[in-house]
Structures are given as structure tokens and as C-alpha cells.
């Protein structure tokens, strides 16, 4: 990995000193981090369920030639 990161309870965080130049970190506790992780997994799982069960058909020969 190119950047040094901090690994905390199953997720990665940027080293805080890297967030002191342009954009600063906001006040955020572990519960807020956990909520983001929960939302992310829920959303990706939901998206997967929407899309993984079907395969979009490609163009037919007639459609391509029309």
C-alpha cells in the first residue's frame, strides 16, 4: 500500500497528520465510524441483490444491423 494507514477494528483510517493541510478531520467518534461502515455494507449488499440476479441481454444481430 502506497500510503501508511492506521488499521482500527476492521477498518482502515488515514494517518491524522495527513489531514492537517487542506481539509481537516471533523469530530467523529467510533459509533459514527461504525454507522458509516454499517450503512456502506447495507447499501452494497442491497445493490448486489438488485443487480446480481439478472444479466442484461446484449443487442441482437438485427438490432446491431438496423
Amino acid at each position: 500500500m502506497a500510503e501508511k494507514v492506521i488499521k482500527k477494528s476492521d477498518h482502515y483510517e488515514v494517518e491524522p497528520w495527513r489531514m492537517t493541510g487542506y481539509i481537516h478531520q471533523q469530530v467523529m467518534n467510533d459509533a459514527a465510524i461504525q454507522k458509516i461502515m454499517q450503512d456502506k455494507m447495507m447499501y452494497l449488499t442491497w445493490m448486489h441483490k438488485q443487480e446480481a440476479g439478472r444479466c442484461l441481454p446484449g443487442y441482437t444481430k438485427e438490432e446491431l444491423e438496423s
Partner: protein
Amino acid sequence: MEILSYKKFYEDPVKKGEKVDDELSKDCYNVFACRHKFCREWCPDYVEEGNESYTSYGYHTGLLALSRGNGDLSEMKNAYIHCLECGQCELKCPNTMFGGDFYRVTTTTVDLVRKMRRDLHAQGIDYDGFEEVQKTIDDFKAHDAGPDEDLTSWAAGLDLPFEGETMMFVDYYNAFQTREVPIAAAKILKAAGVKFGILKHPHITTGELYETDEDAWVDAAKKNVEALKEAGAKTVIIVNPHEYSYFIKEYPRYVGELPFDVVFITDYVNDLIKAGTIKFVKPYNKKVTFHDPCSLNKLCGNYKAPREIIAALPGTHAEIEDPVLQWKYCCGNGVSSAFRKALPDVSYKIGVRRLKHANDVGAEVLLVACPHCKDMFAETKTKSGINIEPVHILEVVAYCMGIEV
């Protein structure tokens, strides 16, 4: 579980004719620079109105434009009222969802909207329809200044003490407008043998005040926490999900770590059902679906307990959707009722869309866990004629327990 996530530089007010704070300007650029627009796809207001100015993208971009000298603060008069404060945009924003936990920087649209409504109000720039909102605030302030007996009159005959290790916090909306909800909650807990008390004088918590006069709201927050502490609370059960989000997300910001645990009523009741303390004696033979309150599902990530309660109800046929799908819906009230009061037509359209969707899944009853949702859906049902009954989940639990509410 306290969820703390906020930006300190939001505390500096945006003032007419003055330079916008550099931190705020850069923060707005972070959203402006995005081309995904996930924020608008499921925004209930954008779905109805189709105006990008009224999305997370629009709010941040407008402010960025202001910081670059393009436009005037008064032009934003009617923009920020179009936010329901449901939180869909900020949790679905890639800045939050795919980078927030890594960088500890997220999109905080709800905070920004509240801040801007406050800043605009402080400079006398109020949105059209603000008078109705001010009237609500004045009514609630009058309750706060009124006699203690009025605030607890909903509990008449329930013989609840004003102290205890377990306290139930009942806000003014529940205490005066949807009394059946706290009454059902209290009767369920009593029937389950839970020893609990209520505050003799709960102080004002309404979101309309929070986004108008922050100091007064914070003052009331401190009084609530102090009163609960003095009453001996170790666990505080909240009956209104709006207040639940204020207690776990906003109170710690101003009061520090709370000296008690905060639990939402559905979590508490669900635990009692699982423990076998709550027993059902009557079936509820209805086809139901469930509407997640925005303040519970989107703002606090709490969605499991209502689903488990509904699954445990005898005789109930439930068609319940994934909580993620419900990110795109709102009842139309908004977490602060200012939206509903200032934009009743948009509010109605949002409510109709949700009711129609509930109809589409074949439900005859729309269960809710929020008094504001219940009130909003009841009004929408009457106006639209869509034949689906909004019922609070606690009323159904009480019914199945054989309790008369």
C-alpha cells in the same frame, strides 16, 4: 450509543456582506466537485420538485458560489427550507459512504441546513411560511413555561412516579398531539412489569427551535439531562424517534457524555418480547407493511427492532422492505416539522408517494414507529383517499397484549 459527528467550523455564522469562512468554503467545494449526484436520486424533495438547488449538491454549491462573490445571502431565503433533514443525501454521499470512515470527513447536509436556517433567521431572512413555524415554537415555549401538570396530563390515571432508574422521556408533541403513543408505551411497560418513571417537567426539544434559536434549545437540553440525572435515571427510554436522534446525536455535542443510556422504545419492547416478558394474547390479522422513520433508520441506523417486533406479532402478514429501499422515502413531515408547515403541498406529494408504495405491496395497514409519521400519513390518507391505515406499532403491540389504549 452516542453518535458524534460534526464540524466545528459550522459554529461560525454566515453573515450578509461578510466573507464566508475558508473552511466552510472548502467543505462546500468537496460536494460541488462531485459528479455522482447520489444525493439527489433518492431525495424525496428532488423526486417531487426536480429542482437541483434543493439538494445537498445545490445547498453546498450555492454556498460555495456565495463564498466566491456570486450571489447574495438573501437569494437563499427559500432554499434551505426544502430539506426534510432526513439524512438520505449525507449517508449515501460517496464522501461519507466510501471515504468518511477512512478520512474522518463526511458530508453533513442536515447540520448545514440547520446552521443556514439559523444564520438566515438571525439576520431577519426568514423563508415564506416561517410564521407558522414560529407559532409552533411559541406554543411549545408556552408549554415549557406552563404548569407541570399540563406536561404530564397525558399520563393521568397511569400512576407513574417522577423518578426511577428507568425513565421514559415524553416530548411535547407526543404529550399534547399524539397522546395515544406515550399512553400505549406506558401501558405496555407497566403490563410487562417494568418499573419506570417520567419527568415532572420535560423541557422543550422540538427541532424547529433547534434550527431557530440554538441557545434556547441547548439550554433546554441541559435542563433535560440534569432533570433525568436528578431523577436517578440509568436508562432513558425515548418514545419519539426525532427526540431519540437529538439525544444520541446532538445532546452529547453540547452536554458531553450522557450520564445514562438512551434506548428507543422499539428496542426496549423488542428486548422484552425476546425475554418472554411481553406475551401476546390476541392475533392482529392484517396485511401490514412498515415505514421506517427517517430519524431512526437514516439518521441513527436503527431499523432491526421494529422488524423483529412485527415478525413476532401473532396473525400478522407482513410485507416489509429492505431498510435501504426506505432511504428514498419520507412521510413528508421532515425531522423538523418546519418543512411540512412551510411547504404543505410538497409535503403532501411526498406522503402520497409513500402511501401509494405501501398500497403497491398489498398492505392494508402501514405501521409506523413515529408520531409525526402517523399524523402526516393520517392527513395524507384523508386528503388523497388512498385506502391504507397508518397505525403506530406500539398500538398494535398493546392490542396483541390485550391492552386497551
